């Protein structure tokens, strides 16, 4: 006996009885959990785009020493060398599968919001040739047609969503002029879906630049990709760095881990706040019920039992707050977001929800520990004298 605990109804009704303090604590826990889950889901969303991007048969050719397309410049004479490098795959008409691309990040506005001048989105603009759709597997138009002249652009599906449903016939503004959307494309959730694609030549004119950023090429024999990659990197005719396309994007996605750490940190800090709120509320609950605790002790409940009863209440509030928090976080599942030019959808994974719930329970447990100890340490006679 003596081990027996008070019934669940006792904890439950006490939690309900102190409505305001329960509500405040519950909200603190819920917000901590929600923020934690949303930040981790942001990281997961970015990572999903990154790991799904790239074709394992492709390599990205950059100028030597360039870490990213932004810092890479390939002069025009190197382009035919790369396009005709032995071992490159060819399409049905015998043309090499090579996508020559110029990348530029531009601040972009919808035309209807252009006047305000603020709040432009940092958006990757990719100058491409029609080969891009062959080399980047899975990319295809879902509406409209390819651009034919300067001022005509394609937008990726996620970017279109992010811009509030921009479609064919709408206009956007970047690089100091208005561009008309003539087509919308999909790319199997790859990073390209958050980009604007324009004709390579138009972008070169727009930026007044002859160099390109990169050439993405397909290997004819994917089985010998590492050797091919090495041969190209060591070619005497061009000085280039060659990266496997999936690795190249996966590296970009690593940055998202920073978000996950930030999520942990913010979750932890908010969690500390929630612990303080919970502890405060549980201490308040105890101070209002000292005599009740003394009575329960007099009736035969042990020190541990009254401590456990209080701890149960704290954990119960934690659990309820956690449930509310993950419920709120679930609303963000699939939420379209754009960070540093990358559009992606938040991905709330079950494991993140589990972690959120664990965070909530930990908050409840830690917040209840000290008050529970105080309850267990009460001397019955003093507790019964308590007003």
């Amino acid at each position, binding site marked *: *006996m003596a081990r027996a605990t*008070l019934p669940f109804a006792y904890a439950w009704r006490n939690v309900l009885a102190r409505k305001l303090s329960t509500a405040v604590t519950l909200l603190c826990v819920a917000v901590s959990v929600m923020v934690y889950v949303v930040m981790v889901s942001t990281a997961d969303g970015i990572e999903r785009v990154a790991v799904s991007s790239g074709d394992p048969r492709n390599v990205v050719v950059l100028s030597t020493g360039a870490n990213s397309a932004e810092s890479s410049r390939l002069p025009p004479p190197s382009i035919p060398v790369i396009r005709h490098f032995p071992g490159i795959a060819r399409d049905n008409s015998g043309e090499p599968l090579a996508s020559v691309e110029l990348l530029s990040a531009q601040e972009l506005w919808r035309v209807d919001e252009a006047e305000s001048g603020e709040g432009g989105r940092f958006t990757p603009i990719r100058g491409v040739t029609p080969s891009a759709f062959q080399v980047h597997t899975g990319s295809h138009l879902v509406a409209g047609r390819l651009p034919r002249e300067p001022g005509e652009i394609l937008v990726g599906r996620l970017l279109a969503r992010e811009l509030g449903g921009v479609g064919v016939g709408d206009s956007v503004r970047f690089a100091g002029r208005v561009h008309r959307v003539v087509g919308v494309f999909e790319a199997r959730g790859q990073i390209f879906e958050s980009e604007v694609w324009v004709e390579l030549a138009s972008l070169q004119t727009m930026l007044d630049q002859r160099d390109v950023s990169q050439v993405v090429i397909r290997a004819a024999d994917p089985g010998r990709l590492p050797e091919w990659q090495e041969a190209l990197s060591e070619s005497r005719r061009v000085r280039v760095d060659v990266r496997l396309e999936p690795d190249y994007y996966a590296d970009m996605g690593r940055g998202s881990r920073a978000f996950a750490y930030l999520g942990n940190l913010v979750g932890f800090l908010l969690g500390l706040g929630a612990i303080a709120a919970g502890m405060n509320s549980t201490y308040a609950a105890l101070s209002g019920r000292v005599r*009740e605790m*003394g*009575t*329960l*002790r*007099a*009736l035969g409940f042990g020190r541990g039992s009254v401590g456990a009863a209080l701890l149960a209440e704290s954990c119960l509030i934690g659990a309820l707050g956690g449930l509310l928090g993950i419920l709120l976080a679930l609303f963000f599942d699939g939420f379209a977001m754009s960070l540093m030019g990358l559009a992606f959808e938040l991905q709330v994974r079950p494991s993140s929800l589990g972690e959120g719930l664990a965070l909530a329970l930990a908050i409840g447990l830690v917040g209840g520990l000290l008050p529970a100890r105080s309850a267990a340490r009460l001397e*019955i006679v003093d507790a019964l004298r308590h007003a």
Partner: protein
Amino acid sequence: MTALVEISSLRKSYWRGQSEVPVLADLDLRVERGEFVALMGPSGSGKSTLLNLIAGLDQPTEGSLRIAGHEIGSLSDRALDRWRNRSIGFVFQFYNLVPVLSAFENVEVPLLLWPISREERTGRVTAALRVVGLADRMEHRPGELSGGEQQRVAIARALVTDPLLVLADEPTGDLDERNADEVLALMRLLNRAGGKTFVMVTHDPRAAAQAGRIVRLEKGRLVDEAA
């Protein structure tokens, strides 16, 4: 046969810093089974302290305190918890019911520590509430009951374990005359007809008049005993 409560040379002091504050000194007292003892005396004379010692809520500084032949001063914390649960019924001045529990659940509380079935518990609780005349108020929370009714629920809670001894510290102290009379009549009935042993602290001579014996404390000593 030994008395139910046998107290001899009992001493209880509190410490305030280094200085000893004696509360009970060299106290002897016997309470027989089936007695109804009223404990009277001025405020601060040590009545509650004595009752708490008999209840096993507090430890004596010195002396012997035997209840039903067991020396309870030497029991461990845990053993005392168990002993109180089995052997003592409590009635407090302010009822001390758990506000979030119904009358039924309040009476059930001490039985939660017993290894008995829910049916048996329900049977005992219902019977106890019937004895105090509150069978029709089982679902009410304390806040929905009058002071007198709350104290009767508390008495049912004290009886439900069928304890050796019921200890009541000013059980009518917070009640008006009519409710006090009802509660006293109930306790007397339980004593006379049910054979329960009561020790009741009271300031109220009308309450004390219901007892079989009055014991007076003054400055921590028994001054006389009146039948």
